[in-house]
């Protein structure tokens, strides 16, 4: 404590330089982490908001909602295992819509759920849809920016179906496109019209994309064997199969990992060089009776102070940046992620100091004798 702090005060320039580098790296780590989390959430918000543990999908669908087709029979079977309430049908379809009055085209994802079930998000504005309503939809409030209001009519380009917006939900999206929630009845009509257009009447009984279930491990295994044509995937598997999700997160994660490694190396090199420079001082300190453990603690404390100090400043900076970021830029840094990232950063810094610590333990007090200059 005594040595560490006095030395940092004395060599202000040296330690401020390294603190600035650490600060920049820490800031970048936090910013990229926030961006990665934000993009992840923005990408798959609707799926992540669902309180399901598993999703049942068609076997050949590669875990993708949009490719999967399941029928009533599958739903009934899943329901018999988990309890009827715990299995909810889900329809997913990505499409392009236009609104009446503008020629503006919008990419959205249609999500069909049972309005009374637990997949239906709560409405923040307007009124919810019910299973009896017809031609009504609840949409993500991101669409407000495109001029959609309560009562607007949206027209599906592919099927020609129209829905009236009855209410808004927030933070609901799939593969970065805003979500449009429909009830089962409208979904069935949509499926039928698609089937008619495809001139293939057999598609009518394959009405859902997936089944969301709340199940424990045993039930999941039971379902897997009971539904040979379907696959039971966990929520996180389903999320990472959303188009673009894995690729997006992968490259951001790589950046974050590299930043961690860089920060560890920057600290390691800096402290190693300083330690070598000070080896005669350490020799003298050992000779006059300073224990190695005391000197090691002193080095570790300096590393800790530097990384904590730069973290505090960069957390403040990130929060300031977050406040001025435009809404369209997804950024999400919850307390748990923030704490985890900070912890990892401090951990990496301490790993970076190991080289110097090793060097300090190797310095011999004997070096102090017979030296002309330290």
């Amino acid at each position, binding site marked *: 404590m005594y040595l560490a702090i006095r030395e940092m005060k004395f060599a202000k320039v040296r330690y401020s330089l390294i603190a600035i580098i650490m600060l920049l790296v820490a800031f970048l780590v936090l910013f990229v982490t926030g961006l990665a989390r934000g993009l992840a959430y923005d990408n798959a918000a609707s799926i992540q908001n669902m309180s399901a543990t598993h999703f049942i999908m068609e076997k050949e669908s590669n875990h993708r909602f949009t490719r999967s087709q399941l029928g009533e029979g599958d739903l009934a079977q899943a329901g018999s295992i988990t309890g009827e309430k715990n299995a909810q049908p889900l329809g997913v379809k990505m499409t392009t819509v236009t609104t009446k009055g503008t020629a503006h085209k919008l990419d959205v994802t249609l999500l069909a759920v049972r309005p009374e079930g637990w997949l239906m998000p709560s409405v923040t504005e307007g009124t919810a849809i019910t299973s009896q309503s017809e031609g009504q939809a609840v949409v993500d409030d991101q669409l407000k920016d495109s001029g959609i209001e309560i009562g607007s009519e949206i027209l599906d380009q592919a099927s020609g179906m129209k829905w009236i917006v009855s209410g808004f939900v927030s933070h609901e999206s799939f593969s970065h496109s805003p979500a449009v929630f429909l009830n089962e009845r409208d979904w069935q009509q949509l499926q039928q019209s698609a089937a008619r257009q495809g001139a293939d009447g057999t598609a009518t009984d394959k009405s859902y994309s997936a089944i969301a279930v709340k199940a424990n491990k045993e039930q999941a295994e039971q379902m897997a064997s009971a539904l040979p044509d379907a696959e039971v995937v966990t929520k996180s598997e389903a999320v990472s199969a959303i188009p673009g999700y894995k690729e997006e997160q992968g490259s951001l994660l790589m950046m974050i990992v590299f930043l961690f490694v860089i920060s560890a190396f920057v600290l390691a090199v800096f402290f190693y060089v300083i330690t070598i420079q000070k080896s005669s001082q350490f020799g003298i300190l050992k000779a006059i*009776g300073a224990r190695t453990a005391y000197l090691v603690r002193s080095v570790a404390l300096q590393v800790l102070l530097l990384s904590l100090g730069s973290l505090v400043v960069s957390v403040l900076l990130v929060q300031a940046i977050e406040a001025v970021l435009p809404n369209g830029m997804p950024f999400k840094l919850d307390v748990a992620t923030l704490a985890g990232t900070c912890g990892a950063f401090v951990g990496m810094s301490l790993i970076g100091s190991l080289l110097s610590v090793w060097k300090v333990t190797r310095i011999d007090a004997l070096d102090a004798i017979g030296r002309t200059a330290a």
Partner: protein
Amino acid sequence: MRHRLRLENIKRTFEDGGMQRTILDNLNLQVSEGELVAVMGPSGSGKSTFLSIAGALLEPTSGDVLLDGESISGKNKKELTDIRLRQLGFIFQSANLIPYLKVEDQLVLVAKLGGMNKSTAVRRARELLNKLGLTPRLNAYPDKLSGGERQRVAIARALMNDPAVLLADEPTASLDASRGTDVVRMLAGEAKERGKSAVMVTHDERILSLCDRVLYLEDGRLVEKQLALR
């Protein structure tokens, strides 16, 4: 008279290219309370080895070092560090102060390592520095001090934990004659006044008159020579 430092039958050999080289051979030394002993000898005669062994930095191949009558052989590293902290005071050649500590803090650090409480440490440090004429330099960093002042701080630091023995490794090497004499006079004075046994390894013949005894390292032993004969 009490012998605070005793070296008994010290032998030290080094492995050198497959050959055993004996640096110190059956070396004996007794330094009594208040006495300052100068040890001279050409380079390579083993002065550093001698000082390292006396300073509990290096273990002798055989023989024993006694501080206040207590042997230090067979102690582990931690215990030896503690002995250096509490029973020995070191004064090194030059620039042996910690560059980022102010004069006062140099002394307080040693006291802190020894577990002394802060206010006692500060009081004792000021007292010592005052005695050595360093009060105006209390808050200076070592790079602002002259060579002589630095060595006086080193003496004060060596005295901080009230050790039994003072060991000086060419304390005048970087000083001119008059400053060197001042420093050694202070060292001798403090040793006398506080009842320490002091050993100084030196090349500097100008300061020998201030020492109680002058010994020469020859063939691994310490030989006494009368100053008057030279």
